[in-house]
């Protein structure tokens, strides 16, 4: 079955510094990878996804993510963090239906704290 690992519980970063949230995945066949953000007492909001093609994917609010097949990673990045980026970030993976693993599997989430 497909799975996602987000190794850090919390990421602290100073405002204006680069932000990286790590994600590694395991899936049979080609992966479809997603990042979501959850603000307090809100639902998850889609940030970006990787399907195929360019390994660097750009998404909402200045976020981007880099797909690395050899390292099975899909780290989320932002060049300059804002205090308003403080939230819970989820990485998710889905495989193809032909492998029977088309359920969207979420990581445990990373709390990002941007310090003013």
């Amino acid at each position, binding site marked *: 079955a497909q799975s996602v690992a987000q190794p850090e519980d919390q990421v602290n970063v100073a405002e204006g510094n680069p932000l990286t949230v790590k994600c590694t995945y395991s899936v049979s066949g080609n992966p479809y990878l997603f990042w*979501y953000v*959850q603000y307090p007492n*809100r*639902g*998850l909001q889609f940030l970006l996804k990787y399907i195929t093609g360019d390994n660097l994917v750009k998404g909402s609010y200045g976020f981007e993510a880099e797909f690395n097949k050899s390292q099975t990673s899909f780290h989320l990045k932002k060049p300059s963090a804002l205090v308003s980026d403080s939230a819970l970030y989820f990485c998710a993976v*889905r495989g193809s239906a032909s492998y029977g693993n088309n*359920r969207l599997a*979420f990581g*445990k*989430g990373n709390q990002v704290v941007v310090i003013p």
Partner: protein
Amino acid sequence: DTAVSQTPKYLVTQMGNDKSIKCEQNLGHDTMYWYKQDSKKFLKIMFSYNNKELIINETVPNRFSPKSPDKAHLNLHINSLELGDSAVYFCASSQQGAFSEAFFGQGTRLTVV
């Protein structure tokens, strides 16, 4: 207009009661889901429907029963509520296809006392 809306937003009820959470999406999606988020923020899929047909049914107590009257609605009914059912329940929808992102509702915070 809210894309995925679920009601109620908060639900406090006593053990043993039966309750329902409603979900509607106006995105024209074929697939709808219910997720449970526990106190540690871990997300787990419970059910998935595609065109009103159940396609994913994870290991969930049979006290939980989803119902999809049409493509735009997926309701969750819970019988004989237990303390351990306390969590935030999210409804979501997506287009059919593994590469389609899901759109989530605001969540229903269920507290069983």
